[in-house]
């Protein structure tokens, strides 16, 4: 799956339906996380390398961490 920031940076005329649905799904997910108490969940700033590494590690270990 493409990273949200990579998708947003892409020319929208090249977006497939799946790309846009991914953006919507990611944004919905961040709203749920925000409502659950993560006040930074909706941040659209690109993730740092460190955050990406932690996320990758969390995926590998099957942990649920909202960054």
């Amino acid at each position, binding site marked *: 799956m493409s990273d949200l920031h990579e998708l947003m*940076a892409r020319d*929208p005329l090249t977006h497939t339906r799946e790309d*846009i649905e991914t953006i*919507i799904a990611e944004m919905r997910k961040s709203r749920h996380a925000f409502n659950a108490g993560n006040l*930074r969940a*909706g941040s*659209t700033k690109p993730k740092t390398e460190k955050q990406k590494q932690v996320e990758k590690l969390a995926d590998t270990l099957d942990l649920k961490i909202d960054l």
Partner: protein
Amino acid sequence: MTQPKAFDASGIQFGWDSTSIKLAEECLYKYKLKMIDGWQPETLSVHLRFGQHYATALEHYHKHIALGIDHDEAVYLVVKEALEDTWDRPICKECQGEGQLDITTEFAEENPWAGRVDKAVTPCETCNATGISAEGAPWESDHNVKTRANLIRTIIWYLEQFGKDDAVSTLILSDGVPAVEHSFALPVDNGIVFAGHLDRLGVYAGDPYVQDQKTTGATITQRYFEGFNPDTQMSMYTFAGKVAYGIPVKGVIIDAAQIAVGFSRFERGFTFRVEAQLNEWYDHTMYHIEVARKATRENFFPMNRSSCGNYGGCEFRDICSRAPSVREQFLKAKYIRGPRWDPLTPR
């Protein structure tokens, strides 16, 4: 410079929207700079652009729903549209936005007696005759929170909260058309026309309202909503809803969105207008309009120096602080004279 439709042949404004009424109420000198002379910042205000894309997306969502499209599909359509609208494409460098090349004439070789004939125009292949470059880039906002990504987030989050289970339903007009995205031009007294654009007319708890979308960086409190009474835009909307559409509109539902770095938060507020308030607003507004028309006729636009510091300071404060003889030079350095704001041009 082309004369906007809202001005008569002698340059006097007869078509008035809430933007121009507010200018006339606020300061006649500012009214002159913006409405008569057409001075404007080189780039559209980030707040204006963000607000326009946001309002358009929600208007179109309600239109899709009223036409029978389901929620998820309507969300998909407006997000797609917003992504495309916020991708800035320059004009084609090859055809300079014309979409065609070789607009030349030449002698017909086979029959010189026929004189000059127009050579066929070649569609520009670089831009596929669109005049717009295939290249482009996402809208780069210079604001820390009113960004393209946060716009998309705000649209999606708003529709998550108010889309499916909205207590406000779109009002269907007597001709069967959903009351969404309606521009109005309403002739009133003395040859004046009130004009504007309503995002949506909705029904809440059995009563009709105009619905309007606002965005802000601040926390939304009751005080925020109290700021809309008195308010020319909200009175104008209620007046137009009542008179232009013949509907007993009670006021305006304001859906306000707080845009922050990590979230978008929404609050719904109401501002009501009773008949007597609207009558008073009408009389006062007609007075301000007449004053602005008189100022234009006499070319005398006095400043209202008491309003220079309002709302964080007037955008022209720096200009007005200069001696009259040098203001034009400072205006040319900081502003452009683009197409003038025309209240009678429908959105």
